[in-house]
């Protein structure tokens, strides 16, 4: 615990950095010393964090992070409101938007069901989803293809199907540039199931 030997304010800064994901005590110390030696960068960082915390909120419609409520996508007039894509995290909206292939609207769950971690439906942004289905013809579930992601997709499908909404799951398979030799049994099975005619 080196930071116990430092002045209180510096120790607090190091401890604050070390709470961030992926930052260990050594890295936290390096970041703190860097900022002390570069006060302009430090002030800029402090201002940026304050502004982000003040300005960024969750869209009350889709749950994505936004400055204006509703967000640009929910307010967009050119978006197809009959297709709704469910994603796990706001970062996934960016990943899908970068493809420029999807023109529908999104719904961000902020997680997936994880019984072992005690994350149930009430911890996810699911209640809002049911209020948004009036004009939706198709719900695409684009959560990550993990066991928890699949369980979440099956759970949502179980809720939505009785409402008569078409529920689809994004395709799984081999990544571009991947090696068949290293692919696992689940991936290859899914890839075969999702094969298409050339």
């Amino acid at each position, binding site marked *: 615990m080196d930071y116990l030997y430092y002045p209180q304010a510096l120790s607090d800064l190091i401890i604050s950095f070390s709470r961030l994901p992926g930052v260990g005590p050594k890295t936290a110390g390096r970041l703190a010393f860097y900022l002390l030696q570069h006060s302009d960068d430090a002030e800029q960082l402090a201002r940026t964090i304050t502004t982000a915390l003040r300005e960024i909120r969750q869209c009350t419609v889709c749950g994505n992070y936004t400055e204006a409520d509703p967000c640009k996508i929910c307010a967009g007039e050119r978006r197809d409101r009959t297709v709704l894509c469910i994603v796990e995290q706001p970062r996934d909206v960016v990943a899908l938007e970068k493809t420029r292939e999807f023109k529908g609207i999104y719904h961000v769950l902020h997680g997936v069901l994880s*019984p072992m*971690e005690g994350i*149930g439906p009430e911890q996810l942004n699911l209640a809002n989803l049911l209020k948004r289905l009036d004009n939706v013809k198709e719900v695409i579930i684009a959560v990550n293809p*993990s066991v928890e992601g699949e369980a979440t997709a099956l759970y949502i499908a179980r809720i939505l199907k009785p409402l008569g909404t078409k529920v689809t799951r994004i395709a799984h398979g081999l990544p571009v540039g991947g090696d068949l030799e290293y692919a696992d049994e*689940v991936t290859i099975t899914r890839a075969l199931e999702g094969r298409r005619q050339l």
Partner: protein
Amino acid sequence: MAVYKADAIVIRSREYGEADKLLTLFSRERGKLEAVAKGVRKPKSTQRGGTQLFTYADFLLYKGKSLDTVNQVHPRESFIHLWDDFDRTIAASGIAELLDISTTRDQPEPELFTLTLGFLFLLKYVDPYIAQASYALRLLNIHGYLPGLNNCVECGATVSGTQAFLSAEAGGLLCSSCKNNETVTMLNGGGLALMRRLKSVEIDKLDRFRWNKKMRLEILGSLCYFCENKFERKLKAWRSGSELIV
């Protein structure tokens, strides 16, 4: 030795750092282990498949100071049936969680390993919650905590009739006169009879069992209470599973 092999089941998987996962493995030779699988959340990782939850695989691990690191992994069985069915996933989560809370690190438990592996295969063929309940009773038996389900554990009287009281503190059933003020969970006659059969029936006959939702929640709830008290940890998957079962 810095590098060692283990054939193990992934019983817990959490995100760790930028693209890593922290895995809890249950191995045949060494019992429960914790290891970091580096970069497995990236799409092109060759270890991604072998490090998914519930996968049974051959691991090559590097011994670290606090955490071991996965060097290589070769999946043996991915249990694809657990990916396709919501109830099977919930039941498998309950099995993995119970194994996790009831074991300590680096303590070989080959009998538990075989039992767990068998039940993960079995989930394909039987009611998943029947399998979960039967697994819990067998795990309790291996740990020496199997509750007495025939006689009152205090006075020895035969427990019969429409209601019985299961006490974790006493380690089994109590008759109505011995119950007193102890914390107990109540079992109806049908639930008790089914539990007696689930603990002793051969595994390959579990596909013959059927139950309704009420009995299922009663038995899983009783076992959850008993296991939480014996192992002094909360069973999150069991509790949230009860809410999710439709």
